[in-house]
């Protein structure tokens, strides 16, 4: 009880400091040449009190303090400690407190780490960021207070949804939020840069670190969400084009485009306005995503508890931010053409423009596919669903062309179009890719033209990136690694979808079924009692034609609070494929419904995303070298 009280009052004190810092900063804008030390102090205090507030909530969860409504709604005394802690941010109110904590942390870090940047720019960034912070403070305190009292105090909580009790899901929100909040700094920094007239090569060099950091966190955060979905939801799927997934993908696409733009801007003053637009768009998309998920306007398996009043707040907040950005952009952006009349485009700029062009297309497909049903329903009362078929049809053809550009683009000399030197090796690799794709599709028995094009182009990109590793210049290791990771990702996803197979059948204990070149034996079941659930474990043995056995033990769990039945798949991962087995009860029968899947190259999907992120991390350290 005390922890919650402290948490609540800390939050209010934090709000006080967040407002206090504004007049002090405005005064400091024009008076001295250095930042007033008071600003650092207040920013730190703001962070400290939000941190204490967050700590108060964590302690309330750990102590199962059910006088706190949030704890009551989302926790239970029998939950393991790890999930009591992670349950803090596994709900709407707690996750907002996490947002707030990361927001206040990042602005403090920004102030500390930007000592070499112009003072006015830093203060302006702080001011813009504070509008976001205050908005979140108000949002939490007025609509989503994690410290509401519940009287009389219940004895037991309602528990956390068992499918959320998973390690990947425990760290997925914090890492994802690190990405979103990073993009808020980029947003504030861009607006500040516009007002101060500071969007230049120096600014680009400085903001690049923040863009990289956000990008890395967002990439890994999305990957963790997919891994969780693979293990917990659905049948071995990892991406469903579900609205909440799309919502995390959109800022990521924007950030990727922005990352490429900033690479141009740090070398040459070009694409200035476009870079700023992307910076604004990235955070806007993150906020838009927050709105769509927390307001209940969309139907998704991921949505938090729905509450329209929250939706109205975020919507208004979002549009205030958008209008503010638009006005500032129009008032302060300089006309580029007048500045650089005589400059010409470098090859790199053109290839990055094309890269952005395609990424913006993919972004528009995802954005339109996600919000169109809302528009249609409001305007015509018609309700439609938009799912994987839509996204696949619109994305895949363009993905093929995009892969080709990625392969040959960076190596072409765009400006000298007439002297296209396509070296022999490019040509040979191209032929090899086509041959390989032909062989692969033949073995899969598929004659799909689209698949063959996709496979050839991804292999081509793969070979090109590998070839580049052996090139004489040691530049751009990070880019090569990330591009290699990307080609591997596309390839793994493709091969996985072509070669996955499954069988669904009903089995009793002791029965077996033959599937392709394996036999699945349902040997026995056992019962087990755990702290917060009881389970029935199925013992299965998969025997292949070489008499090697794999043992899989899927579980059926009955949780006690809330009473839910979940089915836990057992997955055996190996380098080349995953074996995936789930069993389900069939009502009123003594047999189980068993689903067995063979999913090749699954682990390569996760590894390739890690490789992509590693490229980003390398780029971070490269900067330290350059300094």
């Amino acid at each position, binding site marked *: 009880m005390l922890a919650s009280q402290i948490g609540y009052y800390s939050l209010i004190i934090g709000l006080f400091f967040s407002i206090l810092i504004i007049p002090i900063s405005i005064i400091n804008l024009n008076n001295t040449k250095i930042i007033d030390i008071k600003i650092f102090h207040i920013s730190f205090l703001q962070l400290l009190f939000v941190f204490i507030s967050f700590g108060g909530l964590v302690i309330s969860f750990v102590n199962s303090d059910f006088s706190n409504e949030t704890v009551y709604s989302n926790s239970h005394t029998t939950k393991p400690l790890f999930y009591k802690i992670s349950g803090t941010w596994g709900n709407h109110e707690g996750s907002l407190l996490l947002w707030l904590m990361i927001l206040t942390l990042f602005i403090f870090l920004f102030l500390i780490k930007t000592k070499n940047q112009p003072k006015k720019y830093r203060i302006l960034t702080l001011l813009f960021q504070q509008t976001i912070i205050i908005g979140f403070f108000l949002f939490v305190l007025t609509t989503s207070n994690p410290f509401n009292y519940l009287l009389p105090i219940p004895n037991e909580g309602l528990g956390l949804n068992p499918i959320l009790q998973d390690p990947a899901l425990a760290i997925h929100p914090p890492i994802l939020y690190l990405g979103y909040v990073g993009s808020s700094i980029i947003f504030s920094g861009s607006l500040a840069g516009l007002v101060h007239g500071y969007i230049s090569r120096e600014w680009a060099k400085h903001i690049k670190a923040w863009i990289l950091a956000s990008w890395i966190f967002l990439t890994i955060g999305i990957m963790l969400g997919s891994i969780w979905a693979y293990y917990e939801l659905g049948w071995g799927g990892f991406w469903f084009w579900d609205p909440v997934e799309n919502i995390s993908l959109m800022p990521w696409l924007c950030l990727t485009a922005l990352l490429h733009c900033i690479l141009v801007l740090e070398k040459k003053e070009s694409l200035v306005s476009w870079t700023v637009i992307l910076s604004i768009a990235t955070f806007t998309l993150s906020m838009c995503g927050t709105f769509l998920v927390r307001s209940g306007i969309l*139907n998704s398996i991921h949505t938090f508890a729905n509450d329209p009043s929250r939706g109205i707040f975020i*919507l208004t907040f979002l549009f205030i931010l958008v209008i503010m950005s638009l006005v500032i952009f129009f008032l302060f952006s300089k006309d580029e053409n007048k500045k650089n009349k005589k400059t010409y485009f470098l090859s790199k700029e053109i290839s990055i423009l094309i890269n952005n062009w395609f990424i913006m297309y993919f972004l528009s497909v995802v954005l339109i596919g996600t919000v169109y049903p809302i528009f249609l329903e409001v305007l015509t009362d018609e309700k439609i669903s938009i799912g994987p078929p839509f996204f696949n049809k619109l994305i895949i053809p363009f993905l093929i062309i995009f892969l080709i550009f990625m392969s040959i683009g960076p190596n072409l000399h765009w400006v000298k179009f007439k002297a296209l030197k396509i070296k022999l090796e490019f040509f040979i690799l191209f032929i090899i890719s086509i041959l390989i794709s032909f062989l692969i599709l033949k073995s899969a028995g598929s004659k799909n033209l689209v698949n063959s094009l996709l496979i050839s182009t991804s292999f081509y990109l793969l070979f090109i990136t590998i070839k580049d590793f052996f090139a004489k210049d040691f530049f751009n290791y990070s880019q090569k690694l990330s591009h290699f990771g990307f080609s591997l990702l596309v390839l793994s996803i493709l091969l996985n979808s072509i070669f996955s197979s499954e069988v669904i059948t009903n089995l009793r204990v002791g029965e077996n079924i033959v599937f392709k070149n394996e036999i699945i034996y349902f040997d026995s079941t056992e019962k087990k009692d755990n702290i917060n659930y009881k389970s029935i474990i199925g013992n299965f043995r998969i025997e292949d034609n070489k008499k090697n056995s794999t043992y899989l033990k899927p579980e059926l769990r009955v949780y006690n609070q809330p009473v839910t039945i979940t089915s836990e798949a057992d997955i055996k991962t190996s380098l080349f494929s995953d074996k995936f087995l789930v069993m389900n009860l069939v009502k009123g029968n003594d047999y189980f419904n068993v689903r067995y899947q063979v999913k090749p190259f699954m682990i390569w999907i996760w590894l390739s995303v890690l490789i992509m992120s590693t490229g980003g991390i390398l780029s971070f350290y490269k900067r330290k070298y350059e300094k």
Partner: protein
Amino acid sequence: MKNKTLLILILLFFAFCFVVFLKGLKTSNIYIPETTLNKDLAVFASKDFFTGDQISFDEIFVNSEFYILNIWASWCLPCKKEHKFLMQLSKNKSIKLIGLNYKDKRKNAQKFIGKLGNPYSAIFTDEDGTISIKLGAYGIPETYVIDKNRKIIKKIIGPLNKKLLKEVSLIIR
């Protein structure tokens, strides 16, 4: 000045989006389609609950001003709750109350109506759930009010309550 008109256009566009999203928040998220008003009841064949005989659509839906088709099961809690309203309805002689027993075990279903009373003039079974799908049902309990021409005049998703019972009574007057 081209910049200003562009700015105004963009602001208008965002204002439009704002209004749409605002309205979108207010519309209900639970999708109940044009509740099959005036649609013909789908023809189906099924087994009689008590005798186990195959019985045809025509044999059931005949000789009554109104029919009320109720989908239920012994394992469904809301069905238990709505049962007393069904008993009340069954007292009305101008309607034929027909039950469709959904994915149930015979013993349990018999116990259910044995304990709570049988309001139905006829019951059939939908063992695998496909008959309910043919009728466009979402789950159970679900109740259809059908007129003598076998057109669906009202579809109630979820359990009956006092208010819904009143609405139904008004229709079948």
